[in-house]
């Protein structure tokens, strides 16, 4: 249950300065939908940025009026929780290219009647950080006490520290990796193919045609969902349980896991855009700061002031612990302040969203120390 005392402020920042993307394309103006919890203090040193993952959005905590389902990280953010909104000013933004209120493929191209659709440029993690920096200026936040994110969100948090080394005091990178493996990219490619092979795809301009590539998007989500869970957690939750008492010897839904996956796929389609899904998977594939910064990375790290906490989960096979340790090793080699915890969990990649005493305890210990040290 969400704490009713959490104060949700939701708004749209209209950014008028053009953003030059890594691809070379330019977005002249754009909106960023964001949410805040807690208050910015007088010293303006208690701001925290939450970066969301592939399917996330700006609504990280609390419940809207008349809604039962809280934000996606409500267990972590709120009064008295590890990210304590009584002490911190928490900001979460729907990423550029998203489909929950920020400018993205479903938005109208300025000064036209046309929807972006597939003409919306591919946004990289680097670009997201630059757009989030615009929001930071918009909100008149001088520095982040910490930036935190899981999965793709963890990549953004990490990227922030090397892109704006002086603006990030602390950084928490959860269930992430310094770059995707061939297997990771392969999963993303199958998801994209599922979407682009849908008869309603229309080269990405399905909105103009008044249709949705629902089959493809739900397949992509089903595939993704499998990789977010672990064999153990799936086995525990569903096992080989049947929907009906006996086998029917046909291709309808028979096992509970089939039913669950179909439900997840269908539910996802109602709240998510296929072009945004494509864009998010591409920015994951492209993420490779070690290669991007090359030889200059060592120099950059000299100016990095952030203290890092890196967290992984034992059953995560999408970004397993050894991938997090690559980040740790990079930080050790550059003599940065870094701590690392490998949380025992059966939750798979999604464990970063789940309750877990050890995980929350580690988060709380680090954040409390950060708060006390100010």
């Amino acid at each position, binding site marked *: 249950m969400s704490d009713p005392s959490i104060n949700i402020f939701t708004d749209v920042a209209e950014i008028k300065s053009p953003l030059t993307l890594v691809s070379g394309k330019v977005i002249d103006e754009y909106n960023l939908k964001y949410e805040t919890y807690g208050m910015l203090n007088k010293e303006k040193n208690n701001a925290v940025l939450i970066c969301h993952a592939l399917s996330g959005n700006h609504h990280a905590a609390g419940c809207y009026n008349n809604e039962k389902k809280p934000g996606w990280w409500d267990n972590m953010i709120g009064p008295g929780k590890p990210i304590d909104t009584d002490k911190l000013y928490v900001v979460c933004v729907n990423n550029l290219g998203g489909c929950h209120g920020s400018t993205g493929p479903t938005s109208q191209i300025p000064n036209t009647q046309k929807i972006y659709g597939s003409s919306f440029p591919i946004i990289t993690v680097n670009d997201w950080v630059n757009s989030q920096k615009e929001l930071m200026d918009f909100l008149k936040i001088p520095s982040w006490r910490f930036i935190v994110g899981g999965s793709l969100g963890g990549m953004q948090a990490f990227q922030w520290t090397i892109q704006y080394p002086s603006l990030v005091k602390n950084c928490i990178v959860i269930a992430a990796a310094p770059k995707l493996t061939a297997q990771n990219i392969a999963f993303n490619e199958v998801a994209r193919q599922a979407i682009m092979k849908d008869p309603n795809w229309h080269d990405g301009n399905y909105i103009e045609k008044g249709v949705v590539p629902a089959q493809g998007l739900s397949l992509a989500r089903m595939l993704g969902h499998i990789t977010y869970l672990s064999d153990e957690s799936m086995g525990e939750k569903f096992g080989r349980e049947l929907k009906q008492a006996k086998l029917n010897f046909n291709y309808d839904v028979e096992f509970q896991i089939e039913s669950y996956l179909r439900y997840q796929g269908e539910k996802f389609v109602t709240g998510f855009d296929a072009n945004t899904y494509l864009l998010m998977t591409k920015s994951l594939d492209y993420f490779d700061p070690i290669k991007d910064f090359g030889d200059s990375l060592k120099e950059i790290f000299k100016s990095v002031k952030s*203290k890092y*906490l890196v967290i992984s989960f034992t059953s995560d096979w999408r970004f397993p612990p050894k991938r997090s*340790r690559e980040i*740790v*090793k990079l930080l*050790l*080699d550059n*003599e940065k*302040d*870094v*701590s*690392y*915890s*490998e*949380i*025992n969990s059966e939750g798979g990649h999604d464990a970063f969203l789940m309750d877990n005493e*050890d995980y929350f*305890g*580690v988060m709380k*210990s*680090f954040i*409390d*120390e950060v708060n006390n*040290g100010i």
Partner: protein
Amino acid sequence: MAFRKDLLLISSWIRPRSKVLDLGCGDGELLKLLKIDKNINGYGIDNDVMNIKKSLTNDINVLQMDLDDGLGDFESNSFNYVVLAQSLQVVKNPKLLIDDMLRVGDEIIVSFPNMGHWVARLQLLFRGKMPVTENLPYKWQDTPNIHLCTIKDFMDFCKENNYEITEKYIANDKQKKNLFNKVMPNLFGEVATFRIR
């Protein structure tokens, strides 16, 4: 704040502003002491999430890793000191770990409880039972200690492997030296601390 006596000894061996890796760091007490006293830059390693939390609370860089996996995440000669304080006996392969410590550190410091202490010897001799003492508080069935040794054993081990002992400190549990543990360290020393290169 009062620090453990054996850690104060280790601290006295460490140069100011050096880089220290503490294996089996517990709640981060040694690194905290070294940060205050010697202004060092350090990391601790521990495999217990309780200790990770405590070290974070102590504002210590701490890494949750298993010492039995070795120190593969650390570059050669990347630390001035690698410390293994009272954890040698829980390690699966002491030689592999010490070799790895010597690879990573310019110098290493190892301490352990002495199994050859007279109390332990008497318990085995007269009671016919595995020793349970202040420094070895576990019963045989629930001890994490799988490689207990005596001071003599350890010195033989160093000789066999060509580890150069540059300094040693044999003391009772209050980290005091006295005539007994000076003359017959293997019989009267409770905790042994070695500097090795």
